[in-house]
C-alpha cells in the first residue's frame, strides 16, 4: 500500500518537476564545415537554448526568419503549462481511487502535455512556410524537420522529443496503470 501510494502520489509530480530542467524538443544540425553540430533545444523553464546565432546565420541565406526568444512570446507560457501539469499530476494522484473525476483530470493532463509539441509543430510549420522572397537563395517552403532524421541541403538533421516530453508521459502512464490493472482484476473476478 505504502509503495503504491508513493508511486501514484509522489513519483508523477516529481518526474514532471525533474523534466523542467530538460529539453522537451531539440534539433541538431550537422554540416561538413562545422566541428560541432549546431543544436537548439527548448526547455520548459529556460526556453530556447543553443547556437541560435549560427542557426540564424545559416537560415538567413534562404530567407527563413530570425529565431530569437523575444520574437516567440509563447515561450513564456510554457512554465505555466508545466506548473499546471505538476498540479494536475498531484490532483490525479490524490483522486486515483475515485472514478470519473480522475479520468477527467488525467485527460486534461494528457491533452495539455500533447498540446506542447503539437503547438511547437504548428509554429515550426508556419516558420518553414514563411519565407522572405528577397532572400539570396530561393527555396520552396518545406515541412519542418520535427522528429527523426532528415537531410536538408548540406545539413544532416536529427530532431527529437526530449525528456521534458517523455517524463510527464511516464507520469501519465503511472497514473493510469492502477486503473487498467483494477479493470483487469475486476474482469477476472
Amino acid at each position: 500500500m505504502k509503495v503504491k501510494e508513493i508511486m501514484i502520489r509522489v513519483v508523477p509530480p516529481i518526474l514532471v518537476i525533474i523534466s523542467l530542467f530538460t529539453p522537451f524538443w531539440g534539433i541538431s544540425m550537422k554540416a561538413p564545415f562545422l566541428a560541432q553540430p549546431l543544436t537548439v533545444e527548448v526547455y520548459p523553464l529556460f526556453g530556447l537554448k543553443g547556437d541560435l546565432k549560427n542557426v540564424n546565420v545559416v537560415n538567413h541565406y534562404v530567407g527563413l526568419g530570425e529565431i530569437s526568444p523575444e520574437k516567440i512570446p509563447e515561450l513564456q507560457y510554457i512554465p505555466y503549462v508545466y506548473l499546471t501539469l505538476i498540479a494536475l499530476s498531484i490532483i490525479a494522484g490524490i483522486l486515483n481511487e475515485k472514478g470519473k473525476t480522475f479520468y477527467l483530470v488525467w485527460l486534461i493532463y494528457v491533452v495539455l502535455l500533447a498540446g506542447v509539441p503539437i503547438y511547437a509543430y504548428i509554429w515550426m510549420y508556419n516558420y518553414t512556410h514563411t519565407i522572405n522572397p528577397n532572400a539570396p537563395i530561393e527555396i520552396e517552403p518545406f515541412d519542418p524537420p520535427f522528429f527523426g532524421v532528415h537531410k536538408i541541403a548540406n545539413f544532416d538533421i536529427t530532431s527529437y522529443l526530449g525528456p521534458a516530453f517523455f517524463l510527464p508521459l511516464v507520469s501519465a502512464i503511472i497514473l493510469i496503470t492502477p486503473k487498467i490493472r483494477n479493470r483487469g482484476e475486476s474482469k477476472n473476478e
Partner: protein
Amino acid sequence: MGVVKKSDNGKKVSRRKFIAATIGGLAVGGAAGFTLSRLTAPAAPFPREIQDVISERKLEPDHVYGALKTYVPGGWQDEFIMFSSGGHSGQVLVFGIPSMKLYRVIAVFTPEPWQGYGYGDVKTMKLLEKGSNGIRFLTLGDTHHPEISRTNAEFDGEWLFIGDKLNARKASISLKDFETKDIVKIPNTQTQHGGACASPNTEYVSCGSQFPAPWEPGRGYKPGVTYVQLTETNYQEYFRGTMTFLRFDRRTGKFDLANSFQIELPPYMQDLEIIGWGPSDGWAFTNSINTEMAIGGVLEGRPPLEVAASQNDFDYLHIVNWKKAEEIVRAGKAKEMNGIKVITLDTAIKEGILFFAPEPKSPHGCDISPSGRYIVIGGKLDPQVTIYDIEKIKEAIADQRFQGEDPYGVPILRFEDVKAAQIEVGLGPLHDEFDDKGHGYVSCFISNEVVKYTLGPPDYTGDKPFQVVDRIPIHYNIGHLATPESNSPSPKGKYLVALNKWSVDRFPNVGPLLPQNFQLIDISGEKMRLLYDCPIGLGEPHYAKIISIEKLKPLEVYEMGTDPETFSKHPQYVEGKVGYERKKEGDRWVTEVWMTLIRSTITPDIIRCKQGDLVRIHMTNIETTKDATHAFAVAEYNVMASIEPGETATVEFVADKPGVFAYYCVEFCSPLHLEMAGWLEVEPV
C-alpha cells in the same frame, strides 16, 4: 568427396572415439598454433595495393619506414609542435612533428598582410612602432632563438619568446592565440644572438648581445646618437656587450623594462645563452667568440675578422650569478642607462657575479643537460664537445681558484678545475640537445652529421660515460638541431630535427635561392634513423623549440568583443552598435565607424567621409563559429585587417585621396563572400 567416401568405407571408428579425437586434435592444434603465432608474428595482411604503390614508386624499405613513421592523417594530431625561428623572414614558423606540416606563420617583426599585421590595425602598428629603435620604423627582423615560458624550469606552453638578432629586440607571443603581444628594443645593445632564454619560472627572459656596441662612458649606447670612432683602441675601451634580463609579466604578456636589468660585458662577441635549473639554478651562461677583440679592416692593413677573431685557442664561457645580480640591482647598486638598470662591468666584477672559464675554440652552442649539472659547449673550430660541471664551477668560485684575469679584470677559472669531459665528435660541432636517456646530440656543421654521445651521471648512469655512440649524415650543413623539450629537466627524446642550411640536391630546383632543409630523425632507438626532408621556403630558420602538443591550450574563438592585445573587452565594442559619425578631434576631422562583420554582410556597407579625414574603424567579427574569420581591406589604400571570430580590432588610416573605394572581406567565408563588400566614399575638399 572422395575423402569422405574413403572414411566411410574404411575402418570403423566409433562416434565417441571420433569426437574425442577431434576435440583432442583441436586442442593440441590450437595450442600449437597459438604458440607458433606468438613465436612468429603473423605477417599483417598487406593489401595488394600497398605493395603495388611501393613497387610503382620504386620505394625502398627506408622510404616506406619514414613515410609510415611521419604520416599524420587529416584530423589526427601530431605528437609535438615545433616553434621555429623564421630567420630573416622576421617571423616564427609553427610545425607539427612528426608530420613536419607547416601549420602557422606567426607575424612578429615583419608586417604580414594575411594576418592584418602592420597594415592599419592600430594594435599591430603600435607594436611595430614601439618595437622599433626610435630612429626609424623597423619592418624587418632576423629571428634566431625561440624559447617557451617555463614553470619550475619545465616548458609550460603559455608564452613564446623570440629574439631579433639584427636590431636586438625581443618579442613575446601568446600561445593562447599565437599572436605577438609585445616587442621591446633592448637598451644599450645593437645586435643580439643568444636569447631568448627564460629563468625557471619565467621571471626574466634573458639574452646576450652579439656584436658589441659603442658606449659613451657612463651613458651606454643610444641608436642613432652614440658615436665612437672605430679603432682597435677605442673598440677595447668604449665598445661593450650586454647580458639583459628582461622582466616578464605573464599576466599581460609584456616586458617591463623598469624592473629589468642588464650587465655590462667586455667587447667580446657574446653568443648563445642558457639559464640553469636544479644544481645550476641561479646561474646563467653564455659563450663568446672574438676575445681577440679584432675589428677587421681588410682595406686598412689588418687581417679580416674571420681570421683575426680565430687566433685564440680558448675564448671565455661567461658564468653569471644572476640571482646575485638581481639582489645587487635591488640594493640600488645598478646605474640607470637609457631606461634600464645596468650593473657596470666594475660592479659585476667587484660583487662577484661574473666569471669566465676558458672554452675552445670560438665555440657555438651553450646548453644544459636535463639534470642541470652539465653545461655543454660545441667547439666549432675545435672538434670536441666541451662539458663543464656546475658543481666544480661553484666549488672553484667558492675557493677563489683562478688562473688570472682578463684585460677588464674578470676572474678566469682554471679549465681543468671546471671541465667534466671533452668528447671528440666531428668537425665543426655547433649545438647540443638532449634526450631522456642521458644522451647528447651535437650538430657538426663541417662534417655534415649529427653525433650522439653519452653524458655522465646523473644524466647517464651506464658504464660508458662521455663517449660517442652513434652518428648519422645529414644533408647539408647543419646549424642548430632540436629535440622535444630539450634544455629543460624533462626532454622527451623520440625525434630530432636537423636545421640544415643547405639543401643542394634534396629538392627540385626552384631557382638559385634554395630552400633550407629540416631533416626529421628518429632517435627512439639505439641507431638514429632519417625519416623526412622538409623544405623551408620562408627564410632561414636558426633554432627551434619543440613541445608536447598536449601542453598547448589555445583558444578556438575569442569571447565576443575581445581585444586580442589585452584578452579583455575592447573599449569600443558595444553589442549591436553599428554606424559612423564625423567629428572634430582637436583640429583634425575624424570619421569614426563602428562596424560588424558576419556572413555575408559588412555593416555599414557605405561609409562617407571627406578628404583628409582620419578614418577610424572599430570592427567586430560577430561570428561565434570556429574558423569563421573575416578580413577587411580597402582598395588602393594599403589597409588590411584580419578579424577572428569574436575579435574587435581598430583600424586607422588617413583618407588622403578622394574617390570611391571598394572594401571587402578578403577571407573567403561563405557562398556570398563576393557580395560581402562595401564602399568608402571620400569626398574631395
